[in-house]
């Protein structure tokens, strides 16, 4: 994945984002060493502490030697639990694997691996992305749903798939990853920040309104153009299935097959004539749409053309993409659309 242009640090960055020591993972794995791991008691830890004080007070009041011993044992237990929680995260090696591009609104899956090299299994390690401005406004506990928790068996590498909510198209820096654990006693919360130093690509939202059609279709394949607007089960010949891809509309999915446990399959239809189309930025100007809506419309056209296995080209203000077809070409086009300058 290519790196986006460095965002100028012109904006004010709050100190709590600068102060924490963050492990850096770019081409190499980031190792969580003792300087990177933070630990605080959880609310249960605080409650436990209150209980310890109550027990201590009782022991003093009744001069109970065994009460003292018991209180001290439990206090020491919390102390040991703290060391275990900290150790559970220590020396894990985090490496970025890939980020599969998604359309706006879908969750970007950031794939990463955590490697255990110290011959001891790590239990209940959670990877999550905290940063999500929009969710703070709507006050939804998104980080909870987006977190993944796994064990990392001794001397092995475990894959983590951490979801990230997307809001705008373009190339974004993967936000700071939080790795955390409360194992074994939930009395302490240990965490560490990792900058994966990679970007993830978000394609524009495909326009849902398919009333607008490219003018170039008119002279290349009018009949097809009508078909794309109507139901896919219409005149087209069903040609088979392919695995679900991001961007496929629910209509295209074979729900019967997925209910039988075959996974998500997308129905494919044979095109009548895989003729050549040029989608042009200029074409979208006819439809009284704003800047982003025009991009969305182009995205919709590209998706539909790809589904029909047509050859298509893309003419954008910053340059043209020569007509072609196939997955590579499809993603090149979507990426070009994703990286369109903002209005």
């Amino acid at each position, binding site marked *: 994945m290519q790196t986006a242009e460095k965002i100028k640090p012109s904006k004010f960055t709050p100190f709590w984002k600068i102060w924490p020591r963050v492990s850096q993972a770019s081409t190499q794995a980031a190792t969580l060493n003792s300087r990177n791991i933070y630990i605080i008691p959880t609310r249960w830890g605080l409650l436990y502490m209150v209980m310890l004080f109550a027990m201590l007070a009782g022991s*003093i009041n009744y001069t109970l030697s065994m009460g003292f011993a018991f209180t001290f044992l439990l*206090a020491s237990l919390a102390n040991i639990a703290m060391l275990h929680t900290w150790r559970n995260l220590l020396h894990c090696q985090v490496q970025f694997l890939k980020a599969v591009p998604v359309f706006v609104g879908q969750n970007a899956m950031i794939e990463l691996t955590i490697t255990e090299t110290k011959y001891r*299994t790590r239990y209940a390690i959670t990877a999550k992305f905290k940063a999500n401005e929009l969710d703070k406004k709507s006050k939804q506990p998104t980080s909870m749903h987006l977190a993944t928790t796994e064990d990392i068996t*001794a001397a092995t590498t475990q894959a983590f798939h951490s979801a990230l909510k997307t809001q705008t198209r373009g190339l974004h820096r993967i936000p700071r990853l939080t790795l955390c654990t409360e*194992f074994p006693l*939930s009395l302490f919360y240990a965490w560490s920040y990792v900058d994966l130093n990679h970007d993830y690509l978000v394609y524009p939202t495909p326009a849902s309104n398919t009333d607008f059609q490219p003018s170039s279709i008119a002279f290349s394949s009018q009949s097809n153009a009508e078909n794309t607007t109507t139901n896919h089960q219409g005149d087209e010949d069903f040609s088979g299935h392919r695995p679900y891809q991001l961007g496929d509309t629910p209509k295209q999915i074979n729900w019967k097959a997925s209910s039988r446990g075959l996974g998500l399959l997308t129905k494919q239809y044979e095109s009548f004539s895989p003729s050549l189309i040029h989608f042009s930025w200029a074409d979208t100007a006819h439809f009284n749409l704003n800047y982003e809506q025009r991009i969305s419309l182009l995205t919709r056209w590209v998706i539909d053309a790809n589904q029909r296995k047509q050859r298509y080209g893309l003419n954008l203000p910053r340059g043209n993409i020569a007509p072609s077809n196939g997955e590579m070409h499809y993603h090149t086009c979507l990426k070009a659309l994703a990286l369109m300058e903002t209005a």
Partner: protein
Amino acid sequence: MSHAQTKLSLHHLQWLLVSLALILLLHAEHLPLWVILGSVSLGITRFFIEKNHWRLPKMLLLLPVTLLAGLGIGLTFHGLFGRDASLALLVIMLSLKLMETKTLRDYVLIIIAGYFLTANVFLFSQSILISSFSILPLVFLTATLIQISYRHSPLDWQFSLKLAGKLLLQAIPVMLILFILFPRIPGPLWGIPSDSYSGMTGLSDSLSFGNLNQLIKNGSIAFRVEFKGKLPQQQQLYWRGPVLWHQEGRHWRMRNLPENNSLPIENLTTTGEATHYIITLEPHNRTWLLMLDMPTYAPQDAKISHDYQVISQTPVRNRMRFEGVSYLQYQLGAHQTLSAREQTMALKIETNENPRTLALAQLWQTSKLSAVEKVNAALHKFRNEPFIYTLSPPILGDNPVDDFLFNTKKGFCEHYASSFVYLMRAAGVPARIVTGYQGGELNPNGNYMIVRQSDAHAWAEVWLQNQGWVRVDPTAAVSPDRIEQGISNALPEADELPFMIRPNNTWFSTLYLQWDAVNNGWNQWVLGYNEQKQLSVLSQLLGKHYRTSDIVFWLIATISTVMLITTYFLLRTTRKKQDALQKIYDLYLKKLKKIGITPSTTETATELATRVSLLHPTQQRLTDEIAETYNALRFGKHYESQYWDKLKRLIQEFSRK
């Protein structure tokens, strides 16, 4: 962070219920039956609700049940705030809390309350047995906490128990440091429920016919004594307790009237060597400390009264250890005359009863017998008439002293002492009753002496011109064995006595004495570790003149050191374990070489197994299983569980074939 609203599964509920059941078992002895049955049925109900996915009961139902349970506790214990009542209340409330427990938050709350409830048992007993048993719920509660900290899939039960045990073992060093160094603040901080000290036995401040024999039948320990130097003889071991002056019918009482305090201390002259000893007194909820006749030294916060009782400022509610210095040869008040007030007190009897006794005394008076002659006459009567020492005397009539001296003639120390003193006072000889203990059993295992409640005794002191207060033990006149050999040899009918102190019980008593030595150590070093003991330990460790800041420094220093060492061991890679795995696996490879299969270095365990099973199809199941287990241990999740034993067993099985 914590996701308080996460709902937990049946698996977690089972762990919680087992832990709570263990806590209930720990407290079973101190709970009314209905609380136990109620808690158990609530637990079972909660289990089935979870199992069958029923709905939890509504607040509308729970609230009245909760109030009803509270009312029940109030009625059972006549209040809610005693030690026993608050325990029962806590138990039943926690069981009711189960009925609305579904989220992580509820679970953690119950576990933390469970820890607290477990510690509550020490209000009732801190014995070795109870303390050991309390570890069981502790381990299970911790394992439950581990289980609910690992929410994404069920965790192996053995693994969580082992981890809980491991965590607790690792917690012991810091616990010991805190136990020794953490400043002990003397309690109490607030009022103590009045029932906290019920069930403590010991002497009382009064004596009436038939209350001491209940104590004598009690085999529990009154105190233990370590003598420095030579042991006194058995018949010298008179442990002085309450001195009773005041007679009311068949009752004798201490005089705790204000004028008593102003009496001048009796003059003590001692001869011979002092006897030094250390007493560890079991709590009896009274103020007197037991000392050998005659004490010359009172421990801190205690004083010697005018009649040489050692009285502590506060009731003895915890096991107490103090030093004693006594002189076995002494004269008490020999060079004084009895003050008028003492004279009145020591002669006062109720003269409207016991006519025969009064007549006998009158006879002695008119015969102009001296005081010594009167004492001897009385002892002569006990010795030569058929008086019998027994713990089951017949019931005495309206004139108890008459009845005892002239009719029944059966009784034990309190009968002899009180009728003797009555007779002496009637005959004009100042006399008083002294209660306490007589004798003791030497424990060769710990070189200390055990004095039991069954050694409780009562004797008399008479005031003689020029000799002062002289001890007279009328029981000795009747049953010399009681004084010389102890109570177990004085009674013909042994089954009246507690099992522990019956004679001819040698193997058992040897075993018992060993166990008592262990208990004594526990009492001295664990339970008896109070602020005084801490002071002496600290002054040995830190030198005489340490400051509070020194304790803080040493606390931090030692705990940090222990934490560093623990961290080192926690972070040490367990490569050794991997090597151990290879060692076991090598046995298998060796065996394969013997039957002509040479494993290559690039081959995986699974590939090797396939190759072996091709050549030996009958062994396919075994070889597959070996490869699977090996992989599970080397790469799998079950890195440290029962898979080790399984691999060893499989390879052994393979070798045999």
